[in-house]
């Protein structure tokens, strides 16, 4: 049986996400967290995610350029000799916001960040299937972040929460 889309959420181009405590300079992580929250709320209601399914949900984050504003900020600070705040260390990689989502929702499956080579949607779906079929996750939250937009989709088998097809 092929895994299907259990929930989706889209933050359209131009979205200004709510601030995410601990994440500064860039809207990359707030966008990812907001899209993830909306998608997971549609599936689970309030956090944490329900029971065994939540514990076996992976978080996969796709972004073509990563947190580009953050990278540019750090490069500029290095080149100009400007002080770099310690908070920036904690958001140096996209894993950080994926970890935020996983901790907030109690998702204990794999945490993976990918840079899509062709199409993010196709690649995210294929990667979710890989993790589910390999057995390290029952459901996979795939969050795709662009410059001012984000999309999240939860992929899995519909029976996992006892729902009918």
């Amino acid at each position: 049986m092929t895994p299907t889309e259990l929930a989706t959420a889209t933050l359209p181009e131009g979205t200004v996400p709510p601030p995410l405590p601990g994440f500064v300079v860039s809207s990359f992580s707030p966008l990812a967290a907001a899209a993830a929250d909306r998608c997971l709320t549609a599936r689970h209601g309030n956090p944490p995610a329900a029971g065994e399914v939540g514990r076996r949900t992976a978080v996969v984050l796709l972004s073509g350029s990563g947190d580009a504003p953050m990278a540019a900020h750090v490069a500029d600070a290095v080149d100009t000799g400007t002080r770099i705040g310690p908070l920036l260390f904690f958001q140096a990689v996209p894993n950080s916001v994926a970890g935020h989502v996983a901790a907030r929702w109690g998702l204990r499956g794999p945490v993976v960040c990918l840079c899509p080579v062709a199409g993010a949607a196709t690649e995210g779906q294929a990667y979710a299937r890989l993790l589910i079929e390999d057995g390290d996750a029952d459901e996979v939250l795939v969050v795709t972040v662009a410059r001012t937009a984000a999309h999240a989709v939860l992929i899995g088998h519909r029976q996992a929460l006892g729902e009918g097809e």
Partner: protein
Amino acid sequence: MTAPRVAITGLAAVSALGRGVQAQLAGALAGTAAFGPVRRFDAGGRRVTDAATLTDAGTLADELAGAVAAACHGLSAAERATTPLLLGIHGHPDGGRDTTATTAGFARALATRAGLAGVARIYTCACVSGSTAVADAAAEIHKGRSGRVVVAAGYLVEPDQFALFDAGRALARDGAARPFSSGRNGLLLGDAVSAVVLEPAGAREVLAEVTGWGRAGDAHHVVRPDPAGAGMARAIEAALRRGGLGPDEVGYVNANASGADGDSAEAAALRRAFGAARPPVSSTKSVHGHGLEGSGLLELVITVLAAQAGKLPVNAGHLAPDPACDLDLVLDGPRKAASPHALTVNAAFGGANTALLVRAA
């Protein structure tokens, strides 16, 4: 039909220990740390100025291309042309300064230069980039959905990540990485560029097999590991389950430990997964430093080499036992391996954990 076994048929690595796989093994077995003052860029304004860098390192693109070429030695041009690349990398090295420099473009250029069949996936998941790529490649080969692939991963110490780690007070102030040791006070960065060829066993000489793999998350904190080590333990248990091995059959664990506070979380994970088995453990970050996106693959290469040699790398920099890190550490020179099965464990920001189980051929 029997599921294909996952063979490693090519290995290559570059780090501050030197060029080539034998330099990695020799350095790891000797336990001689390669840390020193950074001369590649001006680190003068930083709190810490040490790292493990290879003196004559080229650009990341050149070093990755060299590693892929070395790992693919023995493959014909036609064979390379049907072999895709999985790449673990932080991003395009110029990404912070050139908005036209894309990570996908960097990866495609590497694949083209190496004569490979394009890029299958790019992993940007920090310190588990290379190890996650290997786990995924092994899963696909084992299910018969993939033929030969090349996994490459790399990081060369550069000013931006160095500045971030320095700002985060993550770097060791005493010029040494001391994994699992009392008195440890941080990690030190290091060059790590590696490539591995994976394929269904049978067609070519097998250097080692990837017999098990596991990936799991902590769901604990943005960057700090779960002090109970539950996520890493689940990754290890998944690897052992896939490998059909009991905890007492593993002869060596190449640990993720970097000399940071979080080493105790890994010790908890190892105790949780292995119980009374207590396999010998060392972290080779103590000699080659923390290679970030390149770390997992370099440590896999060293784990394979150690399993092949039947000798266990030293956990260098150790000052005194830390009761929170009660493990059977390899402290006293290279120890003889009691089993051909070895495990390499990695963890990253976001609570990402991987475990790769290998068996020497």
